[in-house]
Structure formats: C-alpha cells, structure tokens
C-alpha cells in the first residue's frame, strides 16, 4: 500500500469515533430506554412532569443568562480598550486579563469563596448571588479573549467615517462597533452560556449545595445510579449544545483560542 497523506487522519478519526461519537450515542440510548434496556419514554416523562427538574433547568438558564450578560457588559469595554492603540499599547496588560485561565480553577473558586465568606456573602445567606459572582469571576477571561481578538480587526476607518458623517457616539456604537464585534460576542456567549449552565464545582462550592444547576443534577442522578434520568438531562443539554453549534457555524475557528 502506497503511503498517502490522508491516511494520517485515520487514528484521529478512529479516536473521535470511539470516544466522542459512540459515547454520545450511548447517552441518547440511555435517555430513551429504561433500566432493562427496553425503549421507554419514562426518563422523558419523569423529566417533564417533575417540577423540581424544571426548576433546575430554569435556574440554570437564568443564571447562565445573567452571568453571560454581566460578563459581556464588563468584558466588552475591557476588550475594546485593550485592542485600541489609543488606550493601550501594553501587550503584558492583555495577558494579565487572560492569565487567570492558567491558574487551577478549583483553586480560584476556593479563593473567591474565601473572600466572599470574609465579606459576609456566603452560600448560607446569599447562595444565588455567591454563585453568580463566582461564575462571572471564572468566565470573564473567556469572554475577554474572543472579544479582544475580534476587536483587533475592527475597521477603524468605518468607525471614523461613521463619526464624520454625523453619527453621535451612541449611533457609532450601535451602527458600527457592535455589528463588527458580533462574531466575538457570539463566540464569547458560546464559551460561557452552556459551561455556566452545566457547571458543577462553582455552584456546589459557592452556594454550599443550595443551588443545583444542570451539572449538579446530572452528577447527582449519576451518583445515585439514575442513569436514564441523568442521561435525559444530558440529552436536553446536548440539544442546547447543538443549537449553539449551529448558531456559531463558521465563526469560531478564527475567534476561539486565537491568542496563542
């Protein structure tokens, strides 16, 4: 057999099939079967009829929405200032904003918990607030990075032209800067929304177990051998992931992880 370069893809393709595709197939299988392995919609029924599950899903959606919005609100100006030569010429400053990513995140969560505890916000009295703060702390660098990479490519002459043609600063922002930053925003949303919904450690540690998100729910179901129910919730998450993959089609390769 003559060597062809495309054969090099074989181990990679086999690895992905074995450890990505087949496992997801199994999750879908377990989501729609019962303990004996027969086709069943019990897990779906349990999911849709149990109010507790809906609460978990709603709280997760809500906290993901809030955390994502907060991260965008805080991160957008940061990325804009960092990428704009007028305000910043220091490459090290950019790195400092991304650097928390490289410190173990459980350790960072511990630090956040300690300081929140010291100022009186703890899981006992403000579980939701503590969790939200923890999420923003953790995901802010992941929002700043794709926004920054996009903003480096902002068409400055368009922004100037906008202003020259009489647009006020608000109009310049909404008509030129924001539309141009859209790929970065979409990328930032995908890097926070689903991860926040499905996070386990942050909600567990900061709310003292008082707030259960989808991640905690799946974990608990699995720990209690409720595979089918856990798999169905995972299936619901998979659908959300599929939506986000569809929404970001063709965008992410440029903006994701682009710093290195």
């Amino acid at each position, binding site marked *: 057999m003559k060597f062809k370069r495309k054969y090099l893809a074989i181990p990679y393709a086999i690895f992905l099939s074995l450890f*990505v*595709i087949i496992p997801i197939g199994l999750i879908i299988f*377990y989501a729609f079967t019962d303990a004996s392995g027969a086709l069943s919609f019990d897990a779906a029924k349990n999911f849709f009829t149990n109010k507790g599950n809906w609460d978990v899903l709603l709280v997760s959606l809500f906290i993901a929405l809030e955390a994502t919005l907060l991260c965008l609100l805080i991160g957008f100006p940061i990325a804009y200032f960092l990428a704009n030569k007028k305000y910043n010429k220091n490459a090290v400053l950019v790195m400092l904003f991304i650097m928390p990513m490289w*410190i173990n995140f459980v350790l960072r969560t511990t630090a956040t918990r300690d300081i929140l505890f010291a100022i009186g916000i703890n899981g006992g009295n403000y579980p939701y607030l503590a969790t939200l703060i923890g999420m923003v702390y953790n995901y802010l660098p992941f929002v700043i990075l794709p926004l920054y990479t996009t903003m480096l490519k902002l068409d400055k002459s368009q922004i100037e032209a906008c202003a020259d043609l009489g647009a006020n600063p608000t109009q310049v922002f909404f008509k030129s800067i924001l539309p141009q930053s859209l790929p970065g925003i979409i990328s930032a949303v*995908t890097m926070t929304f*689903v991860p926040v919904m499905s996070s386990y450690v942050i909600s567990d540690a900061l709310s003292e177990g008082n707030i259960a998100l989808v991640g905690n729910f799946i974990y608990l179901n699995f720990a209690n051998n409720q595979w089918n129910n856990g*798999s169905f919730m995972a299936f619901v998450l*998979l659908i959300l*992931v599929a939506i986000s993959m569809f929404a970001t089609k063709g965008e992410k390769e440029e903006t994701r992880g682009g710093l290195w």
Partner: protein
Amino acid sequence: MVKKILARTYLYMILFIMYLPILVLIAFAFSSNDVISFSGNYNFSFVLFENLFSNTKVAKQIWTAMGNTVIIAVISSLISLVLGTLGAIGTFYLSKRKKKAVEFATQIPIANAEIVIALSLTVMFVFLGTYIFKTKLFSFWTLLIGHVVLSIPFVYLNVKPKLTQMDPHIYEAALDLGATPNKALMKAVVPQIASGMFSGFLLAMTLSLDDYIVTEFTRGAGLLSGDAAIETLSTFIQTSLKKHAVPAELRPLTLFIFLFVLAAVLGLSIYRYHNDKKGVRKDV
C-alpha cells in the same frame, strides 16, 4: 485625555477586582490563621510554608495531587499533540465530504458541556466493563482518554490554519528531492506548522491542568495515588471544599502556582514581542 484616564482606570480597577481573591489568598499564606478573615489579628508567620514542605499527611496529599496533575497534563497533551497534528494533516487532504465529517466531530467536544463529555465516556466505560471486558475499566488509562478527548480538538484547530497558509508544494518538493514521506513530513511540513502545534499543546496543557469533571468521572486507581483513586489538584481541593476543610497549606502552593504562571506569561509575551520585532513568526 480624560477618556484615556477613564479607560485606564476602568482597566486597572477590573484587573484589581479580578485578582483580589487570589491575592488575598496569597497574602494569608504568610499568616498562621486557619480562616481568612479581615477582622482579628493577622499573625504573620512562615508556618504554612514549613507545613507544605513537611512530612505531614496533608503535605503528602497535596504533592501527590500536584504530581498526578502534572503527569496527566504532560502525557495527555503529548498524545493530543501527536494525534491531533497527524489528524489535521491527514484531514487536510481528505475529500470534501469526509473532511466535513471529521470537522463536525472535532467541534463536538469543544461545544459540548464538560459534564456530558464526562458522563458519556463513563457510561461507555461502564458498559464495556460490564458486558465485554467483565472487569472494572476505570484506571489511569480511562482518565488519560478523557483528557485527550478534552484537548485534542484544540490541537487540531490550531494546526489547521497553519496548513492552509503553508506552501502546498513543499511536501512534494521534498519527495522529489528523494525524502521518504516520513522525512518529508518531519523536515518540510512540521517546521511550517510548528507554531500552531505549540499553541495547541499549550491549550491542551491548560485544559488538562484545570479539569475537574472529566477527571472525577473517569479516574481509577493508579499513578502517585497508588491503590487509591487518582487525586489531581482539582479533585483534591473539591473534596476538601465539600468537607469544609480546605487545607491552609494550599495558600503557599497558590503563591508558587501564581508566580510560575506569571513567569510563563511574561516570558512568552517577551518572546513573542521579540519575534514580532524581528518580523518572524508573527503568528505564535
């Protein structure tokens, strides 16, 4: 000018808030207090440093976890580097349809929630262990597979754009000049995509060092933990968090990790700046 000052103030203010918890934790590395608190005495002391380097049970646990974390990160990133780079090169020459299929599969672990990745792998390992191998599969190997799944797409995605930018004739030229395919790849192609491989490797390391969920689900006994389940830094701290007994010795460790990361970040920034100035490898 005013705008500039305001912008700068905002940047430094957020930066300060971002680092506040870590800095406070580090500040209390030099205190003998059990709990971090702003009221009461600070009690300056190096006792936590002494404890971290002593022979106590906690110190041993911490260093075991630290060692495991690094070993797993290095091995899994190297595997991801090799498999992902070969995958990216191979896929580059696949037919359009097959290429699309591989790229789609590559996107899945990136977009997917970590807990779903972890759960799906675990379900498969339990399934295989029960019905096919008739033994418990969870070990260092399952953990390794989990970490490679997490990081391999990032190697692929970092190498791919370098292949697009590469001169397509370079490989053929090497073959025409008498190189074996193996040699042509190593000597002609790899240097062209090295910067992408490097970024992919770094990202793979980051993901592995940070990971909690996949580790928690897929680990078994082994490595420095011996017959016990492998503890990494993440699982060790999370377990202590749950028991409300986070060892204070982690504070000096945080200081070392912080300094190490800071040095690495500064080093890489300077390296990059230097290369930018020389006008080579702008893309690192």
